């Protein structure tokens, strides 16, 4: 049994999830994003962090069986963990999950191919943390059941031409606008968490896309400023003062 684990890269992989096809283009045709719609409360999970961090040995065995049953020898499941915090608890939980996969009926040993994204948009600190996380994970698993291959770095090409819409480009733009939005709101004395700012921008992006509209690539600051105004106006209009 073989799996690939794409670790880190949340700058590129979130907040708007890449489609299984886009992930396949990045990681190679031999890999397909693993999904487990049969797991309770997994309906809205696009990636696999929730599945791997549940600390549920029977769930890991069931996932191992699903891999055994549904993947051909030359085709492997891809597990994506963009938001790992690289701490010891996560290492322990994911190591348990990987050991648990081998409890599938076939009892085959597991080969893990770690993958990271190679991009200018990923900070040097994150790259170092990813590397430390993979090393710690490889040391935490049962070596008689789970073997780690060398880490593969997958280069991400970011299209630059105006009007080209890809999930990667969208995520970078959403993050850029969210950062400016945080600054704009701060100037008005309002603080907003980074995740919340990204969610607001992502939601607005989706609505605009539904209306066949796009945010110009080089006008993020203008858009963020208008958005900050709208947020404050919306808040002000929804506040009722009791007399």
């Amino acid at each position, binding site marked *: 049994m073989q799996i690939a684990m794409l670790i880190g890269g949340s700058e590129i992989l979130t907040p708007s999830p890449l489609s299984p096809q886009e992930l396949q283009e990045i990681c190679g045709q031999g890999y397909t994003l693993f999904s487990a719609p*049969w797991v309770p409360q997994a309906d809205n999970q696009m990636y696999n962090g929730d599945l791997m961090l549940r600390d549920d040995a029977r769930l890991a065995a*069931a*996932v191992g*069986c699903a891999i055994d*049953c549904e993947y051909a020898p030359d085709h492997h499941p891809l597990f994506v963990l963009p938001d790992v915090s690289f701490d010891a608890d996560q290492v322990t939980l994911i190591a348990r999950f990987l050991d648990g996969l081998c409890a599938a009926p076939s009892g085959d040993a597991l080969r893990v191919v770690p993958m990271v994204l190679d991009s200018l948009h990923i900070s040097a600190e994150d790259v170092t943390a990813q590397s430390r996380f993979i090393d710690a994970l490889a040391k935490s698993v049962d070596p008689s059941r789970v073997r780690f291959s060398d880490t593969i770095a997958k280069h991400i090409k970011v299209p630059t031409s105006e009007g080209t819409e890809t999930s990667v480009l969208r995520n970078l733009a959403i993050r850029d606008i969210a950062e400016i939005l945080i600054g704009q709101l701060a100037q008005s004395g309002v603080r907003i968490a980074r995740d919340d700012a990204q969610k607001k921008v992502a939601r607005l992006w989706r609505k605009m896309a539904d209306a066949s509209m796009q945010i110009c690539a080089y006008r993020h600051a203008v858009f963020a400023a208008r958005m900050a105004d709208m947020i404050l106006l919306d808040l002000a209009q929804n506040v009722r003062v009791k007399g």
Partner: protein
Amino acid sequence: MATLDVLIPHFNDSHGLDLSLASIARQTWGGSLRVIVVDDGSCADELAQAERVILASPLEIDLIKSAQNEGRPVTRNTLLDAAEAPFLAWLDAGDIWYEGKLQAQFHCIYQMIHAGIDLDSIWVTCNYDWKWEGRRRYKVQQNVGGDQLKDLFVGDKLRAYLWTLLGTRAAFNLTSRFDERLPRLQDLDYFISFVRVGGQIVAPEGTASHCCYLKSDVGRNASEIRACYATIFNKHKASLMGYGPQVTRRVRAKSDFVVARFAANNAAPILAAQYKLNAFINDPKYALYRLKTSLMRG
């Protein structure tokens, strides 16, 4: 080796085999499967046509030919002997699976592992459509939540159809083999034997049908079916009697009605009336209920 072997008995129905194979080829489940067809001594023309159907199919298919017609239970035992995959599913030539059938049932298998249930003691059935020739399909729900042995005897909530099943090879070998004394209803005997040895029947969540039974009674001998019921009731007498006289009478009356239907559909109205009279003697209350519902349906 494939993950799943699909076991198909075939006798003089190459067109039905074609339909069944096409429905397997359309499955959305992504695992590897092999089909094993055992031809039970079909006539030369039908066998040749079945071979052409198999060659034209995109599936990996092994064909085993029996020199003579040995009957459905022997054929099914041959299929069990030929199976090698860790999981088995059944399909009769002429019946069809809908494209999500295996996917839904494998999801159920993974849920069972997650729930800590031993896979080698479960069979996964599913809801299905029942279609009589020339009539519209109607959905039949498999209710697995009750007393499964009683429900199998009565046959209202849970019905014994092998082509609904997916399970591990070990689970299908948990019970005795197909009873070769039963030219008909060997599914019912096999299901009852499975539950009697501690097997459990489960089903995927949801109300969707996952396969279709293209039903016809034509050419089936009512007396033979009646004899098969008698053999099964006698074989499992201890279990049946354990439910008390009322259930026993109901089960016997219900079987009389089934046999009467076969007789009526094969131009034997007097025989059909005799079986209905038997049903009335066995369980007058149930017979009157059937009469009332029949009159209400027109």
